């Protein structure tokens, strides 16, 4: 890499912080590379008071590594673009304040390790878009036109919690079912999209049943609900604080039990089916 840092080598935006005397130099290790290979590279970089990890990555881009690839967008924890692993933990870079680290800590930043790497901190998150397509969409009720929908707040509360999801895919990244077992990716939708199934199954006006679609059963048969062993890492990493395991996955498992493991229901189905 050539040394072509030009005019304004120290183009820090937060120069006011320097005056506070709160600025210091931090040691970073950032993974750089692509699918062919790569390594953790060491950097020493200025940190000003009140900054987050994403600011430091931006400063690296502006001063030391202009081609450092990173995704980001809103910088306020609302879009879910800047997902990475910081000191081994899946987090949003824009919501990780530098003040949570000691000044002499070495801070390691790597791309998400459950997905194929594209370059530097950018990964191919296409897995998630594939899974999104596998979940059958909301089915509007046939007898209601636009403007005729009536839903009570208590009936939409549950699904609304799940719709807070910003699709940062940290839950998909941390879930050991696919993180540690690439081969499970075909059969397992991951927490985010099982939560989507739960959201639709709890939607007060979803008419999937009228089309013969039983989301309770397909959650297990098509989307791999059984792979989940409710170890709650998805809930731990969720930046929106959605209680994915307790409010979506476990209720979905219980709904699947209603369909598949309740002996009374099973017996009833057997008897009813026999004459046909």
């Amino acid at each position, binding site marked *: *890499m*050539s040394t*072509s*840092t*030009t*005019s*304004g080598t120290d*183009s820090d*935006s937060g120069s*006011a*912080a320097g005056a506070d005397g709160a600025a210091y130099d931090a040691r970073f290790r950032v993974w750089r590379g*692509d699918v062919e290979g790569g390594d953790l590279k060491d950097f020493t970089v200025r940190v*000003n*008071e*009140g*900054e*987050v990890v*994403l600011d430091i990555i931006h400063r690296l*881009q*502006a001063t030391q590594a*202009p*081609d*450092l*690839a990173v*995704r*980001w*967008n*809103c*910088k*306020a*924890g*609302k*879009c*879910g*673009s800047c997902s990475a692993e910081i000191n081994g933990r899946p987090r949003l870079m824009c*919501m990780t304040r530098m*003040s949570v680290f000691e000044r002499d800590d070495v801070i390691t930043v790597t791309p998400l390790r459950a997905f194929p790497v*594209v370059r530097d901190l*950018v990964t191919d998150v296409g897995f998630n878009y594939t899974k*999104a*397509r596998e979940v*059958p*969409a*909301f089915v*509007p009720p046939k007898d209601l036109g*636009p*403007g005729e*929908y*009536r*839903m*009570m*707040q208590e009936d*939409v509360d549950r*699904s*609304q919690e799940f*719709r*807070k999801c*910003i*699709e940062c895919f940290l839950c998909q990244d941390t879930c050991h079912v696919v993180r540690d077992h690439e081969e499970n990716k075909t059969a397992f939708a991951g927490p985010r999209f099982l939560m989507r199934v739960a959201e639709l199954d709890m*939607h007060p006006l979803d008419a999937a049943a009228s089309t013969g679609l039983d989301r309770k059963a397909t959650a297990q048969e098509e989307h791999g609900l059984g792979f989940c062993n409710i170890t709650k890492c998805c809930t731990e990493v969720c930046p929106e604080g959605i209680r994915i395991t307790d409010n979506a996955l476990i209720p979905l498992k219980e709904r699947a039990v209603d369909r598949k493991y309740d002996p009374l229901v099973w017996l009833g189905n057997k008897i009813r089916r026999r004459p046909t």
Partner: protein
Amino acid sequence: MSQVERQQWDVVVVGAGGAGLRAAIEAREQGARTAVICKSLFGKAHTVMAEGGIAASMGNVNSGDNWQVHFRDTLRGGKFLNQWRMAELHAREAPDRVWELETWGALFDRTKDGRISQRNFGGHEYPRLAHVGDRTGLELIRTLQQKIVALQQEDEREFGDHEARLKVFQECTVTRVLKDGEQVSGAFCYERESGRFFVIEAPSVVLATGGIGKSFKVTSNSWEYTGDGHALALLAGAPLLNMEFVQFHPTGMVWPPSVKGILVTESVRGDGGVLRNSEGKRFMFDYIPDVFKEKYAESEQEGDRWYEDPDNNRRPPELLPRDEVARAINSEVKAGRGSPHGGVFLDVSTRMPAEVIRRRLPSMYHQFKELADVDITAEAMEVGPTCHYVMGGIAVESDTAAARGVPGLFAAGEVAGGMHGSNRLGGNSLSDLLVFGRRAGLHAARYAGEQDAAPVVDEAQVDAAAAEALRPFSAEGPEAGATPENPYTLHQELQQTMNDLVGIIRREGEMAEALDKLADLRLRARRAGVEGHRQFNPGWHLALDLRNMLLVSECVARAALERTESRGGHTREDHPGMDRDWRRLNLLCQLADPTGGSAVTDPARGQIDLTRVTTDPIRPDLLALFDKEELVKYLAEEELYE
């Protein structure tokens, strides 16, 4: 060079925010094969940042509401500069656009009888904003995204291919709209991931790229807001309308630097928050303009009583319109009475018990706690004005969203101008996206269907676009051996220039200075060089975006210099009053030298030609919605006689 991959589609939509996705859905439902191109991942658009809600006169909370009242509010908010036909269509169609979202799975907050709840907002006469807590934009994007997936699932069932008729090209950037003679023939794009070029041949192009906030240093906008659509339209020969109108929100965070510009919601002031300077003074009492003197409290005591007893007291001046508050904060800071980080103090901690603050302002409490390590129940926030929205944009036909003068080019959302006049009301942007996104998609599909033969993509244009995009890798110096410019540095200088010289308060001399600086930056931008290769290289991406930001910034500066009055989002210190004669005048920006491209223009003359045009008179039945006394304030003499 001409080995660039080509694909044929009917409609190509640039941008995947609310307007782009709504346009794509409509075009696809009209039967057009539709491609969506977006710079970020699918579902990450800036629309997610919208908090308040979608304005639509459904009348669920107050049955007195209807489209006429909404229209009236919108025109008042825009100080009568709005394209009235757009405001009319917007007010009429917004309820249908919201209801339609429900049939796609959206879950709004509900009223007691199970309908969509609506909330009050500044400038809206009735509770009108459909909302989901403070994350309405996210709900909107997710719903549209999921509708697109639903359409793709249909195609998968019918054709065995999800992307047979609707495809999202995510993390791709369009650098040129291609033309076949006068009409659009497609778009030249690159994949951010690989750096590879490709061309989409299409008779219709819908621009839905959002705003321009990233040309300003302090902004609530995301990195994508580099004015791409504005620049693409200019380069394709379409005019931009009233670019001088930029909305600054009075209260954005100023500290820490990482969140500078992020919004602090208006409800903080509505619930009792007060603004103080470094001397501890509630300075807003010194900034009540004469026209508002009767409506606002004269003493702190009276202002404080208003929160409990609004009928017998006047409201505190912290609740003046956005532009007034923003200007006052600006003055205090310039007078040296600002907070340590260049804002003023917004304090609720001494006004309400901690418990009440946490209950009424949960997201603000969370935002400051998480991002600034500030406990707003114990200390004051530091706030200052932040660039929020551009009212100006591509000049379009009101009914069809077609860009003027370029057949096949359409625009919707923030990138289109005219709908909001000189100032946008909160909540009107999300409804704007839906109403005109749909119209753009509809007419783009119709237009594409009417073409007998596919337009021809000119090989030479593709080669020129490819050469332009590759220039940063072989950046030229003034003479051999000179080092190339760092695009990040250029960007920072541009932001500083626009912030300081064409910001919230504008003066003739400063804007002239800004134009000189922009000319200088434009020359230096020719030498913007990048390291590394084309695979996901943010330095390269920024170097390419600089062209767009420089074009748009020049439009803003030139139009702001030309308009010698203050109105809505345009404040001239040297022309402080609103001038009725300016009401009918729109300023159009066009490329000065459409043949020469952007970089080869003479620095003094600049790239932009400005023309004044007179708007059509407002239709009489719409004018009849207002009182005569009110119209007298806005309309020029001759208009009143007509």
